[in-house]
């Protein structure tokens, strides 16, 4: 087993213990930790959405959001997805975040793009993993806090999320 350089076994066990304590503390001190926690956690999609968006209402964004993803993904390990939002990108009003959420993944929040007016256009693309057939959502947060979402079902022939 590979050990970190310059660390005895005993010291390493101690560190691991400390990390465990810190993790436990993080759970009880939830509000502050929420920002510092990793975006991706093993949780159902409802819990993830609640944690990230605090249960705020989402409007239907199908008029301005274009979610481009194959209807059938033969290989769930690599699924190209792109999101384009037809919205102005000016310092007064712009698209702040684009989230990609895969409902059936064990880690539902796939990625969050943080955009600025300098991006010129609200667009992002990525290759994602899909564990099984299910909805994929794109959630757009505008600079005034408005949330818009679109979703599309993707059929997955071979899942890509072993975990």
């Amino acid at each position, binding site marked *: 087993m590979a050990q970190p350089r310059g660390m005895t076994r005993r010291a390493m066990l101690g560190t691991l213990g400390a990390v465990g304590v810190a993790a436990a503390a993080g759970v009880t001190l939830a509000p502050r930790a929420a920002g510092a926690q*990793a*975006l*991706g956690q*093993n949780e159902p999609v409802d819990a993830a959405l609640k944690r990230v968006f605090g249960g705020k209402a989402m409007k239907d964004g199908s008029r301005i959001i274009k979610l481009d993803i194959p209807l059938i993904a033969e290989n769930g*390990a*690599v*699924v*190209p997805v*792109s999101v384009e939002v037809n919205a102005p990108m000016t310092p007064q009003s712009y698209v702040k975040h684009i989230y990609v959420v*895969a409902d059936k*993944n*064990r*880690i*539902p*929040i*796939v*990625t*969050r*793009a*943080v*955009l*600025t007016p*300098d*991006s*010129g*256009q609200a*667009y*992002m*693309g*990525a*290759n*994602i*993993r899909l564990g099984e057939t299910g909805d994929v959502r794109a959630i757009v947060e505008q600079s005034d806090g408005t949330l818009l979402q679109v979703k599309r079902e993707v059929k997955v022939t071979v899942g*890509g*999320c*072993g*975990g």
Partner: protein
Amino acid sequence: MSDIGKVRLRLPSSIKAGDVVRVRCLVIHPMERIERDKAGKIIDKKYQYIDKVTVTYLGKTIASFDTTQSVSENPFFAFTFKATDPGKLAVTFHDTLGETYEGTADIKFG
């Protein structure tokens, strides 16, 4: 896995001032998945995956991605930026082991 961290950036061949340019970038990286033991319990270890991607243009961060293990192996990202001045565009990938990988492109107008 000696290829880890190779970054490739693709831009259109000619860019005019003021264009909104689409950039595609790719990094060779394993993006380790969560492993489970036979009982289905998550094996607790530090997984190596990219959790942050930042894009800087002319020294200013213009976009970033926060990513999770649901992103595929050898992750690919696409984004746009507004080419206002010639200069450097850099894409930096940060993984959970503290490694960073950077790819740069010189923006020229021609």
